[in-house]
C-alpha cells in the first residue's frame, strides 16, 4: 500500500542552536521504520524519470522497492552496482535538481526523498556488513589516476574491478580531494570518506599521497614508467579573488584556505597543530555551497556575526536550498543584493570593515540571470575582522603546463572529446579539471565514463 503523504518523512536533525556550536553531522539520518515509510511513497513509475536525472544511473525505483521490503542490504547492493560512493552522494548530491527534480511525486507535493534513502541504505550497510571484495581477474595493465577526489576515486574503483592495476597519485597527504578538504564534517563525516577509500584499497587500488604531479613526475614520466593510460582528475583548485582594494590585508582568506585549515587540517580540534583565527565578525563573499560551508564553519568556531554577501537575490543564489535553509536556521545573516567594493584595514593592516554597495537587478546577462548593477550612493560599511572570498575556483595549470600536448580552453579547463580523451593520446580527463567547479556527482559521472573509455582504449 503506497504512502500517499504529500511530504517527505522529515529528516531528524540536530537543533540549530546546538549544532551551530559543534561539528557533528547536522542531519542524523532515517531510522529503519522512517526509511520504509518514505520508500513506500515511491510509485515505481515505469518510465523512471528519476533515473534520467542521475549522472551515474542509479537504479532508483529498484533500490527504493528493496527498502520498502526491508531488504536494506539488497538496496545497498543495487545502488552500488552503478554508484561507487553512495554514502557520500546521499549526503551531498543536489538531488532537488537531479533525481528528485524529476520525481512524479514532486508534481503535487514533495518528491520521494531519494537522497535520504540512498544515505540510509549506505549507512545501514556500513554499520551491519563488511564490504565484499568481488572476484577480480587481473589483466596486467597499469593505469594511473591523478587526483584522489570523487572523480579519480570513482574511475580507479571501476578500473580496478575490470582487472587493471590502478595507482592514484594524490597531491595532499591524504586521499579524498574536495570530500576531505572542502566539505565540512557536519555535512559529510570524514569517517565515511575514509571507509569508502579503504574499500577501494581492498579492491587493490594503490593510493600514493604527497605526489604533486607536474612537479615530482610529469604525465610523460608516468607513461614512461609503464602506465598505459592516465586519467587526470585534478579538480579545480585555484581560488579567485575580487581584485578590490584591501585584499592583501591580514584577515582576508580564500574559502579554500579557510576550509582546508578546518576540514583537512582539523584546526578546530585542540589536538591538531594547524592554527585558525576565531573571528568575532566575519563576511563571506559569494552565494554558492562553498560560501555556505565557510559561513557555517565560522559560526561553529564562535563568530557572533557571520554575513553572507551576495550580489544577486535569493532566487539566483547557486547554493542548494537545503544548505541555505540550514545556514538561516543556524543564524547566518544574509546580505543579498550587496557587493563588496573595498576592504578597510586598521593601522596594523588588519581587516576592520568591509565597504559594500547595494545592487539592483537589471536585464538578464550571459548566464541567463538578471545582471546586478550597483545602486549609486548606496555604499555602507560592515564592521568585520575577517573576509572570506568564496567566488569560485578554476583548474590548476600545474599538469598541463608540464606536459606537452594537453590543451586547455581560455578558462584553463582541459579540452576533451566525447570519450573524455584529452588532446594527448592515452590521456583522459574529467571532473572539475574539465568542467570547472561543479558537483561531486558530475565528477563521479565523468570518472565512470573515463573508466569505460580507458577500458575500451586498452582493449583494442
Amino acid at each position, binding site marked *: 500500500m503506497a504512502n500517499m503523504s504529500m511530504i517527505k518523512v522529515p529528516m531528524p536533525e540536530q537543533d540549530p542552536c546546538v549544532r551551530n556550536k559543534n561539528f557533528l553531522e547536522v542531519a542524523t539520518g532515517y531510522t529503519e521504520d522512517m526509511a520504509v515509510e518514505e520508500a513506500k511513497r515511491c510509485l515505481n513509475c515505469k518510465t523512471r524519470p528519476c533515473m534520467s536525472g542521475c549522472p551515474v544511473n542509479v537504479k532508483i525505483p529498484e533500490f527504493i522497492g528493496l527498502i520498502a521490503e526491508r531488504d536494506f542490504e539488497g538496496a545497498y547492493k543495487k545502488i552500488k552496482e552503478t554508484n561507487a560512493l553512495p554514502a557520500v552522494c546521499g549526503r551531498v548530491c543536489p538531488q532537488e535538481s537531479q533525481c528528485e527534480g524529476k520525481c512524479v511525486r514532486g508534481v503535487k507535493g514533495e518528491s520521494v526523498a531519494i537522497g535520504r534513502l540512498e544515505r540510509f541504505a549506505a549507512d545501514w550497510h556500513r554499520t551491519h556488513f563488511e564490504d565484499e571484495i568481488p572476484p577480480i581477474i587481473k589483466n596486467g595493465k597499469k593505469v594511473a589516476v591523478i587526483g584522489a577526489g570523487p572523480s579519480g576515486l570513482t574511475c580507479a574503483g571501476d578500473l580496478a574491478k575490470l582487472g587493471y592495476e590502478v595507482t592514484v597519485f594524490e597531491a595532499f597527504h591524504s586521499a579524498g580531494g574536495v570530500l576531505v578538504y572542502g566539505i565540512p564534517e557536519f555535512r559529510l563525516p570524514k569517517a565515511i570518506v575514509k571507509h569508502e577509500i579503504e574499500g577501494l584499497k581492498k579492491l587493490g587500488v594503490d593510493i600514493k599521497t604527497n605526489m604533486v604531479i607536474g612537479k615530482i613526475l610529469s604525465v610523460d614520466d608516468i607513461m614512461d614508467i609503464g602506465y598505459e593510460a592516465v586519467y587526470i582528475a585534478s579538480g579545480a583548485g585555484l581560488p579567485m579573488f575580487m581584485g578590490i582594494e584591501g585584499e592583501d*590585508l591580514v584577515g582576508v582568506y580564500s574559502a579554500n584556505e579557510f576550509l582546508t585549515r578546518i576540514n583537512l587540517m582539523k584546526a578546530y580540534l585542540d589536538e591538531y597543530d594547524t592554527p585558525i583565527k576565531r573571528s568575532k565578525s566575519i563576511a563571506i563573499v559569494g552565494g554558492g555551497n562553498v560560501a555556505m560551508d565557510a559561513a557555517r564553519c565560522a559560526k561553529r568556531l564562535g563568530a557572533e556575526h557571520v554575513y553572507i554577501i551576495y550580489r544577486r537575490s535569493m532566487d539566483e543564489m547557486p547554493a542548494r536550498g537545503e544548505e541555505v535553509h540550514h545556514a538561516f536556521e543556524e543564524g547566518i545573516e544574509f546580505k543579498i543584493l550587496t557587493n563588496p567594493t573595498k576592504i578597510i584595514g586598521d593601522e596594523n593592516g588588519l581587516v576592520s570593515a568591509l565597504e559594500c554597495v547595494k545592487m539592483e537587478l537589471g536585464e538578464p546577462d550571459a548566464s541567463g540571470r538578471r545582471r546586478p548593477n550597483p545602486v549609486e550612493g548606496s555604499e555602507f560599511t560592515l564592521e568585520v575582522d575577517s573576509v572570506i572570498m568564496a567566488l569560485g575556483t578554476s583548474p590548476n595549470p*600545474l599538469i598541463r603546463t608540464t606536459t606537452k600536448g594537453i590543451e586547455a580552453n581560455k578558462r584553463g579547463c582541459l579540452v576533451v572529446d566525447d570519450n573524455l580523451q584529452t588532446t594527448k593520446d592515452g590521456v583522459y580527463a574529467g571532473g572539475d579539471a574539465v568542467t570547472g567547479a561543479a558537483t561531486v556527482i558530475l565528477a563521479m559521472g565523468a570518472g565512470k565514463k573515463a573508466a569505460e573509455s580507458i577500458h575500451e582504449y586498452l582493449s583494442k
Partner: protein
Amino acid sequence: MYKILEKRDLNSAVTLMVLHAPLIAAKVKAGQFVIVKIDEVGERIPLTVADFSKEDGTVTIIFQAVGFTTRRMRELKAGDYLSDVAGPLGMPTEFGAPKKAVVIGGGVGCAIAFPQAKTLHKMGVSVDVIAGFRSRDIVILEEEMRGVCDNLYITTDDGSYGEKGFVTDVLKRLLDEGNCDLVIAIGPIPMMKFVSLLTKEYGVKTIVSLNPIMIDGTGMCGGCRVRVGDEVKFACVDGPDFDGHLVDFDALMRRNSFYKSEEQHACRLGGALNG
C-alpha cells in the same frame, strides 16, 4: 613515511635534517621547497631545500626551532620518520648568466643562501657570500659557505665575530667596487627589504626568496599571495623567488605575523628560513 637519515644541531636553535626522499631528490633544483608534516596531527610547513643528492636519494632541510612545529621537529632523531614530505614545489631559481654575484644569507637564511652560492660557483660565476648573524654563537655553515665562494664576509650585530654591523654595510662596499651584476638575498624580511632598497640604487638585479604562510604549496589556498609590482603572485607556484625590487615587503611582514598569537606558530613567520 620519510626516514630521517641524519639530524644535526647547527646551533642552539637551528637543526639540519637529511631525509630519504629519492623521487624528490631526482627532480629538485636550487630554490625549490618541500612541504613537511610530522604526523597525523601535524601542520604542513614549507621549507626550502638546503641540499640534495640524487645518488643517495636524499633531501636536506635546515630549520630554526622558533614555532610550535619546528620545535616539535627538533625533538626528532635520526631513524625517526616524518609522515609526509611533498615536493619539489615552486619554481627553481633563474640565475641567468651573471659574471659576478653576491649571495647574502641572514641567520638561518644561510641554509638557503648556501645552495644558491654552491650552484653559482659550479656554474663558474665569481661569488662573494655575505653571512649575517646576531652574534658569534649562532654562526652556521661557515666552512660550507667558504668552500663555494671567492670571498666570505661574516657580520655580527654585536661584533662578536667577523665585522660588526649589518650585511648591507658590506654589500654597499662590494657594490661600490662595481662589476657585481646579481644579488641573491635570503633571510629575515627586513634584511631582504633593505638589501633590495640598496641594490635598487645601484640598479643591480636582486632575487629574494620568500617564505610566506601556506598550506598546500600547489596554488590552492592562496595564503601565500604576495604583491609583486602591480601583480598579486602566489609564492608557492610563482615563487618562492621574486624580484626584490618589486616585492611589497611591508604587506608580507604583516601577513606573516597573522598567527603569532595562535600557539606561537612562529615557524611560519619567516622564522623557518629567516633567523
